[in-house]
């Protein structure tokens, strides 16, 4: 049965700042308005939380390696401990989210390059121990050579840990994720950098955080640019990034990252309190980005419009008819056609 695109008008009214949608919603048909694809049953706390923590850990290890190389010991130790804590929590979240947590070991049963989750499991099983050894050696002050090697290994694997999660999300039929598969890795890299910079500002004395303040500014700018690029790419699916829970979270991310970066750049050198505030804002902003992208994906999976309309557009670039001789655009037969209400 065809049905009017009910959410359409609601959506137009709810659009942010009261602006009207410039492009009227395309007409589409659906089966009683039911979603076509199934949204993941992943819990936001576990999986969006993992996206955040994995980014914090991965980028933190790069920062720790840089700090160690440049003799910033407090910063290096702080980031190593933070990365170990983040990757431990990550693993716990991932196991907790499994339908059969006792079978988490099956994740390492095969190596499958076509499965980002398999690649990620192997990546984590290499990165986790390295981050652990790096942190333990830094705290204990023993085995400096092993500590340095582990720091280097974690620093080398960290960027992959921080960005592969974008591929994990994008390699699905979820329109808001797959449609942005080119931009999401950069967004996740930026968001991870923001989180690690934030943690560093909280943990390290101002004398050691000059590079961190610079990274925070770069990360906030890159996050905003990547989000913008993803929205531009997504076309009508970008609504899911602007509206509802995802819209609020991503708007919050923009504000928090901006405020954090500005505070870091202007005040964090002189005031420890300002540095901590900037760091917390950056951490919160990074988390908002991940939870926002996650929420946008769920919203895009739950509305058949985001599956049908873009697929129709690619299938019929000229807007012409489908396989049937009856043009989908004109329905002279007077059948119940969906009405675009905005």
């Amino acid at each position, binding site marked *: 049965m065809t049905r009017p695109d009910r959410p359409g008008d609601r959506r137009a009214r709810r659009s942010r700042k009261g602006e009207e949608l410039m492009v009227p919603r395309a007409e589409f048909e659906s089966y009683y308005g039911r979603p076509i694809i199934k949204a993941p049953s992943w819990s936001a706390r576990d999986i969006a939380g993992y996206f955040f923590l994995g980014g914090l850990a991965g980028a933190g290890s790069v920062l720790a390696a840089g700090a160690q190389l*440049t003799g910033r010991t407090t910063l290096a130790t702080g980031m190593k401990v933070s990365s170990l804590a983040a990757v431990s929590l990550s693993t716990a979240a991932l196991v907790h989210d499994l339908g059969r947590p006792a*079978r988490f070991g099956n*994740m390492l049963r095969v190596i499958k390059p076509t499965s980002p989750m398999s690649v990620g499991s192997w990546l984590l099983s290499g990165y986790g121990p390295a981050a652990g050894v790096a942190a333990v050696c830094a705290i204990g002050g023993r085995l400096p050579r092993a500590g340095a090697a582990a720091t280097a290994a974690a620093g080398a694997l960290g960027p*992959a840990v921080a960005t592969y999660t974008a591929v994990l999300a994008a390699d699905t039929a979820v329109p808001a994720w797959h449609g942005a598969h080119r931009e999401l*890795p950069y967004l996740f890299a930026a968001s991870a950098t923001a989180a690690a910079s934030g943690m560093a500002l909280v943990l390290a004395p101002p004398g050691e955080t000059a590079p*961190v303040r610079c990274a925070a500014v770069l990360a906030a700018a890159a996050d905003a640019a990547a989000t913008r690029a993803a929205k531009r790419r997504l076309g009508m699916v970008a609504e899911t990034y602007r509206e509802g829970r995802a819209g609020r979270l991503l708007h919050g991310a923009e504000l928090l990252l901006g405020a954090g970066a500005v505070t870091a750049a202007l005040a964090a050198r002189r005031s420890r309190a300002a540095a901590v505030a900037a760091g917390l804002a950056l951490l919160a902003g990074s988390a908002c980005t991940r939870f926002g992208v996650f929420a946008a994906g769920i919203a895009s999976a739950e509305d058949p419009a985001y599956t049908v309309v873009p*697929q129709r557009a*690619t299938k019929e670039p000229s807007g012409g008819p489908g396989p049937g001789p*009856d043009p989908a655009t004109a329905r002279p037969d007077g059948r119940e056609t969906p009405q675009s209400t905005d």
Partner: protein
Amino acid sequence: MTDSLLSGPEPDPAGDAGHTGAPPRVGFFTDTSVCIGCKACEVACKEWNALPEDGLTLTGMSYDNTAGLGASTWRHVAFIEQSTPHPPVPAPEGRTVLPLAGDADQSAGGDLRWLMSSDVCKHCTHAACLDVCPTGSLFRTEFGTVVVQEDICNGCGYCVPACPYGVIEQRPSDGRAFKCTLCYDRLGAGQEPACAKACPTESIQFGPLDELRERAALRVDQLHAAGVDRARLYGHDPADGVGGDGAFFLLLDEPEVYGLPPDPQVTTRDLPAMWKHAGAAALSLVGGFTLSFALPAVLRGRGRR
């Protein structure tokens, strides 16, 4: 991992999966033009596969109270009520139409029509669920079908959003993912799947895929000749976004009317591009930090001079 195995036509998925001397690929051709909405397929599937009850509610969606495919619903009959003048649908070649069914009131068309369609897992040539499964629980059988090994599945749930058709699902009470196996156990014993066996109108036809595609092409031609212009095959084309479906359909309207995606794509088609972008993003993360360490040092150096 080559591109040809990730998307596009692939004549021998079982062979490419490592099966030697595999039997011909089998599948379903579901001719919805002869479906009478009896739900015998749903019942036969539930019974044969011992699927648990998954909801006894009334949905208000015509006669469809199953609502959709899921972990415990591997055949789902969709009911669509349309107020459309439409040409009568002729019976398939060689089928005797009993007087009652040939009643003038029913065959002459009219302002109301019911579309009924029995949906099922498509057993894609390029199955995204199988591609993304991290444990190897989902596998390609010697018959070219896609099956979950329940003793391996750890309920990661990755296959669920990967499926472009929304077929596979985790069973809440169990945690693992379940879907149609195309009655793998029956195939092994030389039997046809339970749904096809139970279908009283041969709307669900089981057999070697090549044969089914030929039969479907004849049937759609017959419908077009009879003036049923909107009849079309769905999922039959090896050049489509999933390399063609092992279970394909003859539909009487647009796919989305039946809750099917109009142009499904296997997302792993784009995986090489995604890995490249992730690599570039990882490098830019390192680059960003390198710049951040270098810049203050350079500035400080200048300041001293």
